[in-house]
């Protein structure tokens, strides 16, 4: 099942529900901040931070994610065994005191492999999210700001991609371009930027009519300056939310492609790639190899999604609180 769903289309992953009607509290200034209609003020950032910190699960998720990043990228220091060290005599053993998560049929320590594989998985996740957000924001802002032609082209292009399962397009593209991690990053980002562009475009369309943009224009600011200095800072919330959605979608998509055999190829290892042999482990004495890579994907994506949840709550105080 694909996975870029979370970042396709302009709707949020978890649409914001409005709680039960509460009486209006007149004069309560907090409610106005979320409208994104006012130029960014320092106090808005303070408010944002205060709300974000209140979101305990999001804070815990940041800690978990940082630990994962530290362990994976410090694998040469933390991993119990050297990378790819085989022990053919040992072969597959279940988790024990020496090999906490067991070994595969080549006698490789699964914990060690997990940490090194995490480097690739996390790198792909973050790079895809970063690139697609930068590209999508730039194109979306241009389309929204300059309107018509760019706008039409963008919308039609997205329509085209909506008629095919992304997983098929990606698999085909990877067959054409190759299977290294760099190619995977570029191909995934090449598909993901469109949803970001759609979101940004919509925001820019509504913002460019606002008074403070008019004021900037009247005072002679160039379009580029207006976009960078006045518009982008006001839509940083949706953009950051898209980064988190992008990381989650990229990690799951990469693992799916690798599972199908079109993603990361040996000797490179990612969490998805570690599961590409997994079908063979089901119902065998090596079924222990099934769990850890999947659990790590789950944990990472869960953490990223919670951070996104915290971000959207913090940027939009009227959203639900969990």
């Amino acid at each position, binding site marked *: 099942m694909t996975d870029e769903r979370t970042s396709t289309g302009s709707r949020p992953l978890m649409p914001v529900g409005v709680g039960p009607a*509460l009486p209006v*509290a007149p004069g*309560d200034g907090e409610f106005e901040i979320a409208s994104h209609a006012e130029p960014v003020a320092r106090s808005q950032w303070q408010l944002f931070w205060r709300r974000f910190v209140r979101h305990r699960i999001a804070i815990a998720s940041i800690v978990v994610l940082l630990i994962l990043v530290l362990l994976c990228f410090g694998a040469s220091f933390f991993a119990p065994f050297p990378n790819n060290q085989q022990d053919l005599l040992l072969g597959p053993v279940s988790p024990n005191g020496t090999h906490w998560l067991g070994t595969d049929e080549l006698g490789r320590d699964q914990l060690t492999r997990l940490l090194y594989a995490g480097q690739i998985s996390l790198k792909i996740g973050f790079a895809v999210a970063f690139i697609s957000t930068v590209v999508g924001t730039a194109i979306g802002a241009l389309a929204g700001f300059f309107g018509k032609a760019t706008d039409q082209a963008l919308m039609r292009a997205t329509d085209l991609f909506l008629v095919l399962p992304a997983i098929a397009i990606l698999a085909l593209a990877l067959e054409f371009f190759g299977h290294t991690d760099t190619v995977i990053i570029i191909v995934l980002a090449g598909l993901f930027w469109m949803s970001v562009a759609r979101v940004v475009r919509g925001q820019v369309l509504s913002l460019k009519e606002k008074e403070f943009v008019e004021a900037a224009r009247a005072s002679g600011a160039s379009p580029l300056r207006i976009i960078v200095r006045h518009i982008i800072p006001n839509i940083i919330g949706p953009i950051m939310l898209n980064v988190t959605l992008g990381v989650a979608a990229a990690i799951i998509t990469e693992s799916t492609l690798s599972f199908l055999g079109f993603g990361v190829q040996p000797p490179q290892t990612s969490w998805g790639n570690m599961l590409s042999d997994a079908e063979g482990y089901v119902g065998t004495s090596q079924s222990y190899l099934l769990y850890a890579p999947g659990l790590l994907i789950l944990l990472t994506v869960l953490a990223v999604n919670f951070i996104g949840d915290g971000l959207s709550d913090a940027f939009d105080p009227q959203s639900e609180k969990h």
Partner: protein
Amino acid sequence: MTPDRSSPPDDTADLSPVDTASLTLESTIDSGNGPLLSVRDLSVSFQTDDGLVRAVDSVTFDVHENETVGIVGESGSGKSVSSLAILGLLPRSAKITGDIVFRGQSLPALSEKEMEKIRGKEIAMIFQDALAALNPVYSVGKQIAEAIAVHDRDVDKQTLRERSIELLDLVGIPNPSERVDQYPHEYSGGMRQRAMIAMAISNDPALLIADEPTTALDVTIQAQVLEVLERIQDRTRAAIMLITHDLGVVAGVVERVVVMYGGRQVELGSVDDTFYDPKHPYTEGLLASLPRLDRRSDKHTRLHRIVGQPPSLIHLPSGCAFHPRCPYAEVPGRCSEDRPELAEVAPGHRSACFFPERVGSLVEEPA
């Protein structure tokens, strides 16, 4: 919560006694001279993230049969919350104290099932912003028919349709037999409001609560809608609670006025007393801010404006909630320290002000 029957009836001398014979069938059940609706010491509060919000604070008033009462106040004054409390439509998080007695029955004590039988049948409500208040996916006729059918399951489809058309005709919708099948978005603003009224009167309720029925409309349409309400009242003998922020709307229609501010009642009296001899500075300010045709304006007269902002219900001012905006307030002094209770200033006329005798200078003297 028991009905507080010991409190004195809130009658007004100039009200003609109710003529029981002319009442509709249902309203004869409780035909004594007691009020139709009696709100006693009603308070409503909500627990929010920012603290306890007391949306309605110790409100007491009566509505008699076939009477029209105006509830006046700014948004956040508690007028709408009070009306929702009467119908039991507040969210579960609302904490309600005090009593609401309708035809001798305490409404807060009723179960949800029992309330459902009263809503729309005995007490009906007309909401503001009819576009949002009508369900967009059902035709207007279907929505009126539903209002009838939930209280009388024996009516067949054909009769429901005929009665819906009749009702639309009654509230002045042109071409009702075609309009009945149209959807709310195909109606104009004024027609939607009329359709809301048609829906509300479909079961001949004894009490009609109209919450800002004219707010979203043009002035000419406003007058038409008010005219429909008056006509309906003549026909059905229903009592009407007209909730509005606009004293101008109230003036021509109602017999008695309740003025609310910051969730509290500040003045209560007949429409003449309140308009010509206001005894609360807030009422006076509201009246002075109305453009008036009946008073000659020389060039020194300007429309009055109440200074300051409506209060935040979370941080209500101490003492009298109006004191920060009051031109007569003794600050520091009683006004900022003690809370004034509603007290009789003349027969049938009450005010929650320590200095009702000071009130009046604004209206009388040109600035």
